[in-house]
C-alpha cells in the first residue's frame, strides 16, 4: 500500500511540473532570411502594406491575376520594382492583411543581403549559405522557419533568386 501511495505521489509531482512546461517556446529557430532594398527590410509572410508604403518612392507598378472563376475569393498581385518584384495575395483591393507570398530578384542590379546576385556560381552560394536543405541540378533551396530562399540554377550559374512562403 505504501508503494502505491508513493507511485501516486511521483506521478502527481511529474504532472505538476508539466503545467509549467506547457508554454515553453519551441527551441529558437534560426532567423528566417529576409531581403532588403533601399533600407526597407521584407520577408515572405509579412504584411504587404508597410513594405509597399516604404517603397512608394519607387512607384511600383502592380498587376492583378484574377482567378478563372470570378466568385472565388482572393487574387495574386505583383508589384514591379527596380531589379526585383513582390508578389502578394489579398482578398480584394485595399485588403488590410494583404500578405507577401514571394520576393523575386529579376536582375543582377540587386543582391541578397548576404551578397549573392544573379550570375553567381552555385559554389559561391554554398560558401555563403552553407549546406542547402534541398539541392537539385536546377535549384538550391534553404528552408528557415516558414520561408525558403531558392536559387534557380542553369549550367551551375544562378539565374533567379526568390524568397518563398512555405505552404
Amino acid at each position, binding site marked *: 500500500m505504501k508503494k502505491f501511495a508513493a507511485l501516486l505521489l511521483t506521478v502527481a509531482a511529474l*504532472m505538476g*511540473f*508539466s*503545467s509549467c*512546461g*506547457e508554454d*515553453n517556446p519551441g527551441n529558437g529557430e534560426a532567423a528566417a532570411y529576409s531581403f532588403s532594398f533601399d533600407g526597407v527590410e521584407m520577408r515572405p509572410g509579412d504584411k504587404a502594406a508597410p513594405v509597399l508604403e516604404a517603397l512608394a518612392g519607387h512607384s511600383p507598378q502592380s498587376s492583378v491575376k484574377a482567378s478563372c472563376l470570378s466568385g472565388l475569393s482572393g487574387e495574386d498581385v505583383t508589384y514591379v520594382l527596380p531589379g526585383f518584384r513582390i508578389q502578394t495575395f489579398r482578398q480584394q483591393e485595399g485588403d488590410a492583411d494583404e500578405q507577401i507570398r514571394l520576393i523575386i530578384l529579376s536582375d543582377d542590379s540587386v543582391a541578397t543581403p548576404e551578397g549573392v546576385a544573379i550570375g553567381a556560381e552555385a559554389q559561391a552560394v554554398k560558401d555563403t549559405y552553407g549546406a542547402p536543405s534541398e539541392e537539385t541540378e536546377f535549384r538550391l533551396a534553404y528552408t528557415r522557419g516558414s520561408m525558403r530562399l531558392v536559387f534557380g540554377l542553369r549550367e551551375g550559374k544562378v539565374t533567379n533568386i526568390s524568397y518563398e512562403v512555405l505552404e
Partner: protein
Amino acid sequence: MQFNSIPFLLLLTAALVLYYCLPLRRRWYVLLGASYLYYLAAGAEYLVFILYTTAVSYLTGLWLGRRAMRDATALAAAGELPREERRARQAKDRRARFRILVGGLVLGFGMLAVLKYTGFVLSGVQAFVPTLRIPELLLPLGISFYTFQSMGYLIDVYRGKAQPERNPFRFALFVSYFPQILQGPISRFGDLEPQLFGEHRFQGERFRAGLARVVWGYFKKMVVADTAMIAVRTLVEQELTGAYVVLLILLYSAVIYGDFTGGIDITIGVSELFGVRLKENFDRPFASRSVKEYWRRWHITMGTWFTDYVFYPLSVCGPMQRLSKWSRAHLGAALGKRLPVYIATIVTWFLTGLWHGAGWNFIVWGLLNCLCIQVSQELQPLWRRWQAAAPRLCASRIWGCWQALRTFLLMGLIRSLDCYRNVPLTFRLWGSILTDFNWGQMLGDLTGLGLTPADWGVLAAGVLVQFAASLLGKREPLRERLSRRPVLLCACLTLGVIVILLFGSYGIGYDAGDFIYGQF
C-alpha cells in the same frame, strides 16, 4: 466513421436487414460483424488495441472464474472447519484472486494510460529534459469507453456479481458493440449481456421509437450543436473576453448538450432498432438544482462507474479504515469522519477529470466539480436553517428555477475549461467577465462570430424545440407517445429529416462534426 456519414447509414441498413433475416439465436453474429466492420472503418491499425483489451479481460475473467470455482470446491471438500481457520483460508483465497484481478487491471488500464497519458506525463518531464522527444501515439477509437467497460466486467467477475463469459466471440461483442463504442454509455456486463444475446423479434413500436430517437439525435447534433460550434470555435480561437465568455458558456452548453446527448440518442436509438436496450445516460440534466444532482443526471453511466468501482472501494479499503480510526481518534469526531470520504472523493474526481483528457484543464475541471459538491455538502446545515426560515419561498417554483439556473451557469462556467484547454488562460477569462463586461459590444458583434443572422435564427429555434420537447416529454418521452401513432410519427420523421438536410451544419465549409466525446 462518423454517425452522420453515409457509410454509417449504409452499414446500419445492411446490418438491420441481415439481423432480422437470421434465425433468432444467431442474430448477434450480425452485431459482432457490424461492430468490427465499423471499427475497421475507423482504422485497421486500431484493431490490435481493442483485440488486446478484449483478450486481456476475457482471459483474466476466465481465470478468476475458474479460481473461484476451485477455491469453493476445495473449501467444501475440506468439510467442517473451525471458524478461524475457515475465515483465514477464505481471506487467503480472496487475496490470491485479488492479485489476478490487479494483474488484469494493470494490463487493461496500462494500455489506456500508455496511449493516452504518455504525451502528457512526458511533457512534464520535458521541463527537466528539454531534448526529450515525445512520441506521437495514436489514440484508438473509443478506447476510454471500451477499456472502462471491460475493466468493470473484471471487477464484477471478481466480486461474483457476474459469471465470466466463456465464448470469446460473445465477449468480443460485449466489448466492441458498435453503437456505444464511440462515446458510451458504459454498460455493465450484467445489463448488456442478456440484451445482446436475448431473442429479439421485430417489434414495430420499438423499431419506430428507436428510429424517432435516432432522427432526434441527428437533429440535436447537426442542427443545433454543430451550428453553435462554429461560433464557439471563433470565440475560443480569438480568446474574446468579458461578455463573450458568458456567450461562450451559453453556446458551449448548447453544443455539449446537442453533441453528447444527441450522440447518445443516436446510440440508444440505433441499438433499439436491433431490440437491444441500453442504459439511459442522461435524465434532463439542465433541470437539476444542485451540482450533486447534476452529476446524477449527466453522463449517468460514467458517474455510477466511478462511484461503484473507485469511490466505494477506496472509502472502505483497509488503509482508509485505519485512517478513519486514526483521524477520529486524533482530529475529533466531526473532521475525523469526513477525512476518509473527502480523500476518496478528491481521488475519484481527479481520476474522472483525468479520464476526460490528458491535460491539466481536465484535471482542474474534475477537482472544481469536487469542490462544488463538498462545499454544498458542508453548507447543508446552513441551507436547512434557511429552509426553516422561509419554507414557502423555498418550496416555490421560482426558487426551483433559480436553483436550476444557478447550477446550469455554474456547470457551464466549469465546463468552459474544456474549450480553452489552458488553465491560466481560463481563469483570466473568467476574471474578465467581472472586470470588463462589454455586453453591448458583444451583442453588436454577433454576426462577426462566423454565424449569419439566419444561422442564429436556426440555433434559437433549435434550442426552443429542444426545450419544448423536454417540457412536453416530462411524464413520458415524446417518442414513446409518438411510436404508438405510426402515421403521425412518419410525418414527424420526414419533417425532421428535411429540417436536418436543409438547416444542418454539415458538408464542405463545416469540418465534419466529429463527436466531442468521440476523441476520448
